[in-house]
């Protein structure tokens, strides 16, 4: 069995099983946990739950003016690599083939050249994000090993993907195998650490919006 056979076979199968198990576990656990009941009456003119959730979610997509000076660069850089990741994952033909095999859904793809440019920009933004985490005193203080691990397993597939498409250093089949294995690492890590925010962010920010709106807080 070659490294590519292993990556396309047992490795990706095991990673998908762990990924699906972990996501299902974390989400059902979170949704069925006992909730504290807010006995206080809603404040006058407080919006409903859905409007409060939407307001809270949208409001938190951009920093408040009071914090803009400190956080704007980090927010914009985060948008760059998040949008970059979305374009690379959902726009590259090879990735869409993988998703089609998994789900049956398919859509139009982007040229390899555009994907390569976006991937390089994404990688650069990820490196900048790490630099901020390492050199900003506040960020450094609040960062845990989980943050660095999340950065590593996110950056590795981007870097190996660029190397694979560009045929850098190794033979294509080895690069492809390493890239798939790096994706396996990402999938296995995803449900059990900070990366889970990709799912939980919708729940937490919406719940914050509901709570704040009910209590009349201006957000």
């Amino acid at each position, binding site marked *: 069995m070659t490294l590519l056979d292993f990556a396309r076979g047992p490795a990706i199968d095991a990673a998908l099983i762990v990924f699906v198990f972990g*996501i299902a576990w974390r989400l059902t656990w979170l949704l069925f946990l006992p909730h504290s009941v807010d006995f206080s009456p809603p404040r006058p003119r407080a919006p409903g739950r859905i409007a409060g959730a939407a307001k809270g979610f949208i409001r938190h997509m951009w920093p408040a003016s009071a914090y803009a000076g400190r956080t704007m660069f980090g927010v914009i850089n985060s948008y760059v690599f998040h949008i970059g990741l979305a374009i690379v994952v959902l726009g590259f033909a090879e990735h869409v083939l993988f998703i089609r095999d998994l789900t049956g859904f398919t859509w139009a793809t982007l040229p390899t050249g555009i994907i390569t440019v976006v991937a390089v920009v994404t990688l650069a933004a990820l490196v900048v994000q790490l630099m901020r985490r390492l050199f900003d005193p506040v960020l450094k203080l609040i960062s845990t090993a989980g943050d660095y691990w999340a950065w590593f397993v996110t950056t590795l597939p981007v870097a190996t993907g660029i190397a694979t498409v560009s045929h850098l250093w190794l033979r294509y089949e080895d690069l492809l195998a390493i890239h798939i294995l790096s994706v396996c690492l990402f999938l296995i890590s995803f449900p059990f650490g900070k990366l889970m925010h990709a799912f939980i962010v919708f729940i937490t920010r919406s719940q914050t919006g509901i709570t704040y709106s009910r209590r009349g807080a201006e957000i």
Partner: protein
Amino acid sequence: MEDWSPEAGTVGEALTRQGVSRRALLKYGSYLATLMALPPTAGKAIAQSLAKAKRQSVIYISFQECTGCLESLTRSFSPSIEDMIFNLISLDYQETLQAAAGEAAEKARQDAMAANKGKYVVVVDGSVPTADNGVYSTIGGKTNVEILKETVADAMAVLSVGTCASFGGLPYANPNPTGAVPVSALVTDKPVINVSGCPPVPEVIAGTIAYIVTFGKLPPLDRHNRPTPFFGDSIHDRCYRRPFYDKGLFAKAFDDEGARNGWCLYELGCKGPITYNSCATVKWNGGTSYPIQSGHSCLGCSEPNFWDLGGFYRPLPDPTDKRPAAVGAAAVAGAAVGIATAAAARSRKRKATHEGGPSK
């Protein structure tokens, strides 16, 4: 002025006897140099050394195979099979091509081995069955394992022709009922050159033999022991459809507009990116075409285990296995564990509330 005068028993003498001119030999040397990606000046050197080279004794044995490799070799255009047999080499044993049969044929093999001890090249096509003491393929009452070990004992080198001999091929594919193995699994004390392909490109078989005859040594080999002059580039890197891959233009079916426009066949399962061979450059039938040019995706036939890569029409990014049922089971199990964990938390909270303790 170089010395081109042929000596007895050399390729040059055989060529002179057949009226082949020095110019034709130079032309052939240039062709070989081009085929092996050598500098143009190498053509003259090849022609000169070919003229002086002794005709190489070759014993060609066939095991678990379909004769497709030999069929391919007999369609070699340059050098043609006639060139090969009458000029470049002395083909001392080949069951399908030789007139002799039965004991006379086996004697021809024994005689060639004795006469060229330590100097002959053994060409093997087909994998070697080893299960049940090798009974699944025998010749003259001997198993393939016995014949192989006996024949290669005094050989200079072994040339595994075709993917069956090189990597096991179809007989080696899961579930491999005959216990088939490649030649390299049994021959460990001699150089084994793999000329893989199902079948191999005829010019590549002939070119590899010509390389040994010309240079008197083995060609440089890649990690699968294949001659790098012929297996150095992937089909994908040399494919004329590569620009469509880079533009993201893919045929979605073999009869759609993309296919008619000659777009990339990657999405239809093309294994060109992981397949190393000369199909895209040397091509087939005298340089006429190759599978991708004919509208079909590359099967990856010159790579190990190509039968077991998940299917010829599954794209490379797809996992080789069909989605395991375990993925669905994992979702159900994960949800069950999540609900159970939340239920336990609710129970703890209820218990704490009833006991008058702080709500957690």
